[in-house]
């Protein structure tokens, strides 16, 4: 008779892995099934025989070795038991080390820089002199160019161009007579008030020049615009130019002089005298 029962149950029975109900059911089947009984017997024999296959006794020194291992481990954990402070300590070391290194780098770089600078400078005296000469020559040329530009601009029909020309004089440090004459001429004769005002201002920077002062004083009488007259009065007061009193007095005699300007000029005269 072929047994339909699952043979796995035999192992479960031997290993006591069955529930109460399963075991009861299986044992009923076992009582009827010779095949299963035989199978169980064979398996159980092996299973029981395995009981006698024993491992050798472990060495008695195993606990000792374990203790040694445990102590080692605890010791290796010791520095890590304080990981935060250790880390901070390391950081601090880095911190104190780093500025030193940075300082060293800085010093080295500065020395290198100085060395280069020295080398470059040492080469220059010979060529430097020539350079200097060249630069002076160029400067002079530029200066002359500007003067020329200025002079030609002063003759430009556009008032704004002429103002531009006048303003160039602020870049000309030592104006020559030609430039000053041109400016004085503009001051006296330009028909645009604004140009004349700018010119007056430009001439102020050369006021130390006797020629310029004289020209300014003489120009007082030629100004018919109240703006210019007022500006002249301010300027003379600033320069403390006593010679201008004469010109101002002449100006006062003009019938068509603006009343407010008249007052101002009178004030200026009293202050200058």
């Amino acid at each position, binding site marked *: 008779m072929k047994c339909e029962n699952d043979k796995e149950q035999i192992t479960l029975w031997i290993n006591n892995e069955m529930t109460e109900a399963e075991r009861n059911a299986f044992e009923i089947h076992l009582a009827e099934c010779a095949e299963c009984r035989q199978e169980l017997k064979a398996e159980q024999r*092996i*299973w029981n025989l395995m009981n006698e296959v*024993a*491992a*050798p006794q472990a060495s008695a020194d*195993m*606990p000792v*070795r*374990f203790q040694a291992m445990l102590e080692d481990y605890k010791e290796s954990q010791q520095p890590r038991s304080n990981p935060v402070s250790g880390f901070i300590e390391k950081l601090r070391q880095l911190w104190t080390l780093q500025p030193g290194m940075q300082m060293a780098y800085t010093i080295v770089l500065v020395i290198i820089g100085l060395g280069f600078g020295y080398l470059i400078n040492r080469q220059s005296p010979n060529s430097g002199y020539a350079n200097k000469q060249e630069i002076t020559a160029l400067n002079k040329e530029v200066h002359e160019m500007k003067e020329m530009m200025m002079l030609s601009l002063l003759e430009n029909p556009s008032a704004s161009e002429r103002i531009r020309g006048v303003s160039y004089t602020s870049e000309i440090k030592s104006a020559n007579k030609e430039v000053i004459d041109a400016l004085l001429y503009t001051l006296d004769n330009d028909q645009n008030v604004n140009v004349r005002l700018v010119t007056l201002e430009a001439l102020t920077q050369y006021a130390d020049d006797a020629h310029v002062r004289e020209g300014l004083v003489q120009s007082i009488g030629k100004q018919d615009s109240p703006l210019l007259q007022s500006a002249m009065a301010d300027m003379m007061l600033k320069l403390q130019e006593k010679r201008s009193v004469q010109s101002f007095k002449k100006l006062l005699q003009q019938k068509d002089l603006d009343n407010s300007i008249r007052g101002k000029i009178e004030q200026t005269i009293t202050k200058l005298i």
Partner: protein
Amino acid sequence: MNPLSDNSIMLKVKNGDLDKLGLLFERYHRPLFGFLFHMTGQRELSEDMVQNVFYRVLKYRHTFRGDGEFKTWMYHMARNVVNDNGRTLKRSIRQQELTEYNTDNVGGGFAADESIHKKQELATLRNAMAKLSEESREVLILSKFQELKYNEIAEIMDITEGAVKVRVHRAIGQLKNMYLQIAN
């Protein structure tokens, strides 16, 4: 929880009381040695492995959550130790196993006055066990020698309980056949 249970002791170890691990070593180093010896067949190696397993228990103590049994967690580590050694060992195991099993180191019920028949039977069985596949041998060792229940074995081996049933049954079948084959 019982303060002397495996789990509560292991949780103390986890929380820094490393000395408490000594108690667990006392409880488990012998069965663990048995498992490792049956797996590798080499006595000295197995002793080293026991130390290794407990070293791992220390090292990975933070991974012990206490929701499973300490025992299964420990065997899990033991299997990893065996597997780590396994690749280099495999070839030497069978030879070793035979020689070591047959030496006088074998204790328990293997006295000199036992019948020659019994000796032969045991020798045959050891031989048969040595010829089993690693997988079959492992489930037999765990269920027979370590007396673990199927659900524990399932947890240790990361398989289902059903799979353990199948494997144990198959392993006994293989062992029986192997035994008969050698005996005859």
